[in-house]
């Protein structure tokens, strides 16, 4: 099975492209920094956001019941799904009972996680992702490579070629304005023909029984206000207690994610469109289990801004697909192995533990601490390759015995410089694949200190 390192190697092989990807994301990270530094109370906001999430998680069942009560009073139909299969079946049942043949969707990482699109398509429903980036990757039959900027890995020429084939734009045309205009016309046709709209949920508010959706394009509003049927799908962790708390999260979300003070449209849906129906599907899919794990429960505070990806030196240089999971980057590297520790065992190691993700996280998730903690979980589960586990066992044995360590150091200094290169470098030394082992010093630091006049 190929892990993160193998897939990254393929991405990094195209050096120009990897560099371009790195720079694109760093540009977004810099915009985030400018926004954050413009708010004197930035750190207090992060503290407040973190505290609100911690509080909400400590009473999540109560708040979900309050949300449901108020949502029903708003005329919203509330559904509960234990897992992805149940979520997909509920959405399909709602669509089927309304005779929907064409669904327009705005961005929802939850439905990506549940693989809703192929499920509906297999049952004869045409699904159109309407966020421009998502439409691009949908036409390419790819998943998003970033949760906020789904097509960040593509160059304009590639999108121009795709649109030439799929939308009939001029061959060779790659001007973003021209391509966006073509997509606008194409997708407006889809909006006009759809009988239902599905949106994600950025925040659900217990106090109002409503949901909030943020977009820059306005696609969620087209989908939720034109057709008579609106379905909103949310993970249980999207809940916040009161509407006033929205101010804290909305001030942080777009500034952290794209470096904007707020998204273009921040829509508060507290009920169906006139003469229509609104459904909210509340999904667990493993989240309540994470809640029970002290070391990892703070990951449920994530508001999916993408800041940890934009700043991550590993994500920027390896691309979203190297993670092989719906949510890539540092937060994805914690969420994915929760779902399947064997399959995603390499992800918590896809980090230098530099802590930049933790520094930018608007809800102060201790991301790099969790990545480290997960490595221990994976070693205990024996999900880590034997070679790595053996090395760790030997290291642990030696480092906890000072005299053995000193003796080992002396042996290494004496022997390694005499060994032929072919013995030092090889598949048994992954550290040395792209690095030279430092020259062995004639004496240890300890010896040097001993000789210093005190």
């Amino acid at each position, binding site marked *: 099975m190929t892990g993160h390192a193998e897939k990254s190697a393929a991405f990094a092989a195209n050096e120009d492209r990897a560099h371009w990807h790195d720079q694109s994301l760093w540009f977004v990270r810099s915009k985030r920094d400018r926004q954050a530094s413009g708010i004197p109370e930035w750190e207090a906001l992060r503290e407040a956001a973190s505290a609100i999430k911690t509080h909400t998680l400590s009473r999540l069942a109560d708040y979900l019941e309050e949300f449901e009560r108020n949502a029903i009073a708003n005329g919203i139909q509330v559904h509960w799904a234990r897992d992805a299969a149940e979520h997909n079946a509920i959405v399909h049942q709602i669509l089927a009972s309304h005779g929907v043949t064409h669904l327009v969707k705005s961005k929802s990482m939850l439905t990506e996680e549940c693989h809703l699109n192929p499920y509906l398509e297999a049952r004869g429903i045409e699904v159109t992702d309407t966020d421009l980036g998502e439409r691009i990757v949908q036409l390419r039959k790819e998943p998003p490579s970033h949760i906020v900027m789904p097509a960040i890995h593509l160059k304009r020429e590639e999108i121009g070629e795709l649109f030439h084939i799929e939308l009939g734009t001029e061959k060779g045309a790659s001007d973003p304005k021209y391509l*966006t205009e073509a997509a606008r016309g194409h997708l407006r046709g889809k909006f006009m023909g759809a009988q239902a709209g599905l949106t994600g949920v950025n925040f659900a508010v217990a106090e109002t029984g409503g949901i909030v959706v943020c977009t820059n394009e*306005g696609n969620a509003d087209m989908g939720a*206000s034109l057709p008579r049927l609106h379905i909103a799908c949310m993970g249980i962790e999207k809940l916040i207690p009161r509407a006033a708390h929205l*101010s804290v999260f909305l001030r942080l979300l777009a500034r952290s994610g794209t470096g904007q003070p707020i998204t273009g449209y921040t829509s508060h849906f507290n009920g169906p469109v006139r003469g229509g129906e609104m459904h909210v599907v509340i999904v667990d899919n493993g989240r309540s289990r994470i809640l029970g794990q002290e070391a990892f429960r703070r990951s449920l505070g994530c508001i999916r801004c993408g800041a940890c990806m934009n700043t991550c030196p590993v994500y920027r240089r390896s691309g979203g697909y190297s993670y092989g999971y719906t949510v890539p980057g540092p937060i994805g590297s914690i969420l994915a192995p929760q779902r399947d520790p064997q399959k995603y065992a390499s992800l918590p190691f896809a980090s230098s533990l530099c802590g930049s993700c933790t520094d930018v996280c608007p809800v102060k998730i201790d991301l790099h601490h969790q990545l480290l903690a997960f490595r221990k979980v994976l070693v205990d589960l024996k999900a880590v390759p034997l070679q790595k586990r053996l090395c760790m066992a030997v290291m642990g044995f030696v480092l906890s015995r000072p005299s053995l360590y000193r003796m080992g150091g002396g042996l290494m200094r004496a022997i390694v410089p005499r060994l032929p290169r072919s013995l030092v470098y090889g598949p048994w030394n992954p550290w040395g694949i792209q690095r030279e082992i430092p020259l062995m010093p004639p004496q240890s630091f300890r010896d040097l200190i001993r000789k210093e006049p005190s």
Partner: protein
Amino acid sequence: MSSRSAILDSLRQNVPPAAPLPAPIDGIRFTDPIKQFEETLTIAGGTLVRATAQQDLASELAKLNLYASAAKVASLVPGIPSRNVDLNAIEDPHDLEGIDVAIIPGKFGVAENAAVWIPGETLTPHRAIFVIVQHLILVVPAGQIVDNLHQAYERIQWSPNSFGIFISGPSKTADIEQSLVIGAHGARSCTVILL
């Protein structure tokens, strides 16, 4: 057991220790909130028009080329007539397609992010009006610019089965190589008139 009870039971079994809610945040203030609003709106791709002393909306509108040249105008502002559109005669919101300009009253603006709050009842009869039209003109009382989003949420009244939206500038996207393009799905321009 229903999925609802299964989820709620699982959450109660895994419940973390109690944690209090934090104190409210005292947000940023500006010496000139209108100037801040204007600067932020400009960056968001919108345009601010400060009405002249007469406070005559009709004459301010007449000065706007996109309004003067529009074939179909939907107005939700009392006293400003619609042009070639009768919103109340439209049954299906899909028939809003083709309207060039919508003029919509905003309740208040927010200086820190150039967002204008529009309560859903303002949009009656069709809440899709703000996103389906080609150009948007928002009319906001000049005395109703708050500094930050915390103050904004203090002002909002929530009623059951309602809708409300913050709009900050025109529809936009940067999904192709991070290059900003105005006019993704919704309005191609957003003019805010401070009255």
